[in-house]
C-alpha cells in the first residue's frame, strides 16, 4: 500500500513545478499557473524554462534538476520530443510528473517516443501520468487544470482517460450537484495506470464513490483483481468508450469468433458489481445517486412513485418497469394511512400516487409532506421517487411546496435508518425562470443528500446502477 502514498503527491501537492510556461506568450503552462493562483493554491510554484528569468512574475529555474527542493508534482506541457529528457532531468527532484503533451502512442509515429518516455520515467524514478492528457483537479488542494470549477470539495473520485471529457465531468457534474475529491486525466497511461489510481481512490478516506471513463486497459487483469478484491466496498461506476469494436483477433474457434472487447468489459462489470454506462449523462446520474444514497443491505426492488401528473405517473411506472423495478400496490395499513389523509377528489393513493398540484398544497403544503412521510416507512418500498412538474407547482405562489417536500424528505432520512431511498425528479419546461428555480431547489436538495434528476426514467436508470452494487453486496461477491 505504501506505493499508493505517491499519489498524495498528485492530488495534494505541497509544491509544483511547471514545464512549458512561456515568458513571451500565454501557453498551457501559463494558464495552469494562473488557474492555480486563481483557485487559491498555497504552495510554491516553480516555472522551469532554459532561458527565461521570470514567468508570470515567478522566479524561473533552468531545469527540473535545478529546483531548490523536491516537488510533489510537475506539470509538463512542452514539445513531445523534449519530454523524455525533461523527465530524466527530474531524477530526485520530482515525485509525480503529468505529461500533457501529445504526439506519443496515440499517433502512428509517436510509439517509439512513448517507449522512450516510459524508459525515462523508470530511469529517473519519476512516476508519469499521461501523456496526452489535461491535468488534475483536486479542490481540497486548490489545484485545477481548468477554470469555472467549484472549490467545494466532495467525495467523488474520477479517473478519466480523456482530457476534454474530464472537463465536462467536472463542469456538468458540479452543476448536477456532484462534488469531487479529485479527478485525474490519464491519457495514454504509459506509466501510471487506471488500476493504480483506482487502488488509490479505494484506499483514500476522502473518496467514497469512484467513477472511471476508460476506452481500454493496458492492465485489465489487474483492474479485475482490484475490483474483485474491493468487493464493492465503495461504489465504482464505469463510463466505457469504444465498446463496439469488432472481434479482436482472427479467431480459429467458435469462442474466439464470438468474443470481443464489449463482452469482456461487460463480464468485468458483472463479476465485480460495477455498473457500466455509455453516456456522460447516465454516468453523472449514477455518480450523483451514489454520492447521495447509501447502498441498502437488501437490494432495491420496489419503488413508490409520487407526484403530480397522470401521464407522467404512467410513463414513470413504465420506465421503472423497464429498469427492472416493480411499482407494487401498498400493503393495507399503508393504504389505510394514505386514505386517512383525506386527499381531495382527483387524487389516487394507489401506487403510483398521483395527486393534483392544487391538492398537494392543502394545509400549506402539508399534504405533500404527509404523503412523503407515510411512503418512506411503507415496509415493502425500497425507493420513493417524488416527481414535480415545476411549471404547475410554481404557479401556486403562496406556498413553497418543494421546499416543504425537501425538508420532509430530510426529516424522514434523519428520523430512521434504513428508510427507503428518496429521490427527487424536478421536471422543467426549459423556461429560463423555471430553470433558475430548479437550480436553487436542486442545490438545496443535493446538499440535503437527495439526488435530483430531470426525468423519472433517468432516476430509474441511475437506481438500476445502484441496484447492481446492492445485489453484488447482497450476494457477498466476490
Amino acid at each position, binding site marked *: 500500500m505504501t506505493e499508493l502514498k505517491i499519489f498524495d503527491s498528485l492530488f495534494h501537492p505541497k509544491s509544483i513545478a511547471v514545464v512549458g510556461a512561456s515568458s513571451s506568450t500565454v501557453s498551457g503552462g501559463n494558464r495552469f499557473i494562473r488557474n492555480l493562483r486563481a483557485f487559491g493554491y498555497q504552495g510554491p510554484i516553480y516555472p522551469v524554462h532554459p532561458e527565461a528569468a521570470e514567468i508570470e512574475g515567478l522566479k524561473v529555474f533552468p531545469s527540473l534538476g535545478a529546483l531548490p527542493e523536491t516537488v510533489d508534482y510537475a506539470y509538463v506541457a512542452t514539445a513531445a520530443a523534449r519530454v523524455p529528457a525533461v523527465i530524466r532531468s527530474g531524477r530526485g527532484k520530482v515525485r509525480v510528473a503529468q505529461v500533457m503533451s501529445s504526439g506519443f502512442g496515440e499517433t502512428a509515429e509517436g510509439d517509439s517516443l512513448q517507449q522512450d518516455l516510459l524508459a525515462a520515467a523508470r530511469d529517473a524514478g519519476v512516476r508519469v501520468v499521461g501523456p496526452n492528457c489535461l491535468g488534475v483537479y483536486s479542490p481540497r488542494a486548490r489545484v485545477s487544470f481548468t477554470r469555472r470549477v467549484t472549490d467545494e470539495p466532495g467525495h467523488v473520485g474520477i479517473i478519466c482517460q480523456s482530457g476534454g471529457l474530464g472537463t465536462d465531468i467536472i463542469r456538468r457534474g458540479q452543476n448536477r450537484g456532484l462534488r469531487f475529491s479529485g479527478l485525474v486525466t490519464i491519457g495514454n497511461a504509459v506509466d501510471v495506470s487506471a488500476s493504480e489510481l483506482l487502488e488509490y481512490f479505494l484506499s483514500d478516506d476522502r473518496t467514497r464513490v469512484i467513477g472511471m471513463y476508460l476506452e481500454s*486497459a493496458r492492465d485489465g487483469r489487474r483492474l479485475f483483481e482490484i475490483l474483485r478484491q474491493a468487493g464493492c466496498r465503495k461504489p465504482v461506476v464505469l463510463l466505457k468508450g469504444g465498446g463496439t469494436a469488432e472481434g479482436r483477433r482472427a479467431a480459429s474457434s*467458435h469462442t474466439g469468433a464470438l468474443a470481443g472487447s464489449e463482452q469482456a468489459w461487460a463480464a468485468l462489470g458483472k463479476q465485480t458489481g460495477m455498473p457500466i454506462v455509455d453516456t456522460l449523462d447516465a454516468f453523472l446520474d449514477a455518480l450523483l445517486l451514489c454520492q447521495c444514497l447509501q447502498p441498502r443491505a437488501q437490494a432495491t426492488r420496489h419503488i413508490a412513485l409520487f407526484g403530480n401528473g397522470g401521464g407522467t405517473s404512467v410513463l414513470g411506472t413504465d420506465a421503472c418497469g423497464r429498469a427492472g423495478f416493480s411499482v407494487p400496490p401498498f400493503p393495507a395499513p399503508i393504504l389505510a394511512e394514505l386514505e386517512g389523509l383525506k386527499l381531495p377528489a382527483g387524487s389516487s393513493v394507489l401506487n403510483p400516487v398521483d395527486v393534483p398540484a392544487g391538492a398537494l398544497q392543502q394545509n400549506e403544503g402539508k399534504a405533500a409532506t404527509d404523503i412523503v412521510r407515510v411512503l418512506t416507512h411503507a415496509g415493502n418500498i425500497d425507493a420513493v421517487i417524488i416527481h414535480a412538474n415545476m411549471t404547475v407547482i410554481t404557479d401556486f405562489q403562496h406556498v413553497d411546496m418543494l421546499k416543504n417536500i425537501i425538508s420532509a424528505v430530510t426529516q424522514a432520512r434523519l428520523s430512521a435508518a434504513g428508510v427507503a431511498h428518496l429521490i427527487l425528479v424536478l421536471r422543467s419546461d426549459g423556461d429560463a425562470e423555471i430553470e433558475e428555480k430548479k437550480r436553487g431547489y436542486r442545490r438545496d436538495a443535493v446538499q440535503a443528500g437527495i439526488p435530483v434528476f430531470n426525468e423519472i426514467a433517468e432516476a430509474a436508470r441511475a437506481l438500476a446502477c445502484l441496484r447492481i452494487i446492492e445485489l453484488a453486496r447482497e450476494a457477498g461477491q466476490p
Partner: protein
Amino acid sequence: MDPHELQSILRGAQEARCGALDEPTGKRILAGYGIAVPNAVVLAGDGSFAQVEGRLKQPYVLKLISPDVIHKTEMGGVRLNLASTQALEQAAGEIRQRVEAAGARVEGWLVEEMAESGVEVVVGGLRDPEFGPMVMIGLGGIFVEIFKDVSFRICPVTRGDALQMVDELQSNPLLKGARGKEGVSIDALVETILRVGGEDGVLMHGQPQVAELDINPLIVSRHGAVAVDARFILDQ
C-alpha cells in the same frame, strides 16, 4: 491433472509447432481436470478395429485424427452410431478415401462410445488481450451461431459467476426444462464451467499457451455432462 503435466503437454505441442492439440490429447487434458469424456480407443491409421470389441460399448463413434484437417466434421471425418466393428471398418475406408483425395493425411482413428442424449452446450475459452483468460458458454447450434446467445466471464470464475452465466442465457429454459420437457443437470454444467474456467481450471493452468478452447459440444443430460469434442488452439 497436475498443472506441470498440462504445461509440459502444451509446451511440447508448441515446440512441435502444432497450432492445435489433437482431439485425444485435448480430451486427456479435460479428463485430467475431472471433466467427463466418452470412453475411447485410439488406433493408428492402419490399426485394426477388431481390438475395439469388448473395450467399448456399442454403438460407436468414429473420428478422424489428422494434423491436416482443422474442421473434421466438414471433411466428413466424424461418423456416429456405428453398430459394429465391421461398420467402423467400412466408415473408416470411406473417410480415408475422401481425406486422401483432398491431399490430407490420416494419422489415426478415435473410436468412442456414443454419449447419452441431452442438450448440446458449447463451453469455450479464450485469452482476451486486456483481461487474460475468459470462459464462455452457450447452447449449441443456432443459439450460438445465429442468436449469439452466449455468456462470457473473466477467469477465474466462482460458482456464483457460473450460475449467473447459465441464468444469463436466453435459451436457458432448454436447460432448466420447458414445455413439458424435463431439465438437465445444471449442477453438472456449473461443475464443468468451474473445471474449465475456475481457480484451478484448465484455462488458468493453461496460460499462456492456450489461446482458444472449444468444447463443442458438451452434452448435458439429466445425469451429467460429457465433453464430446475438444479443440485447444495454441498461441503461436
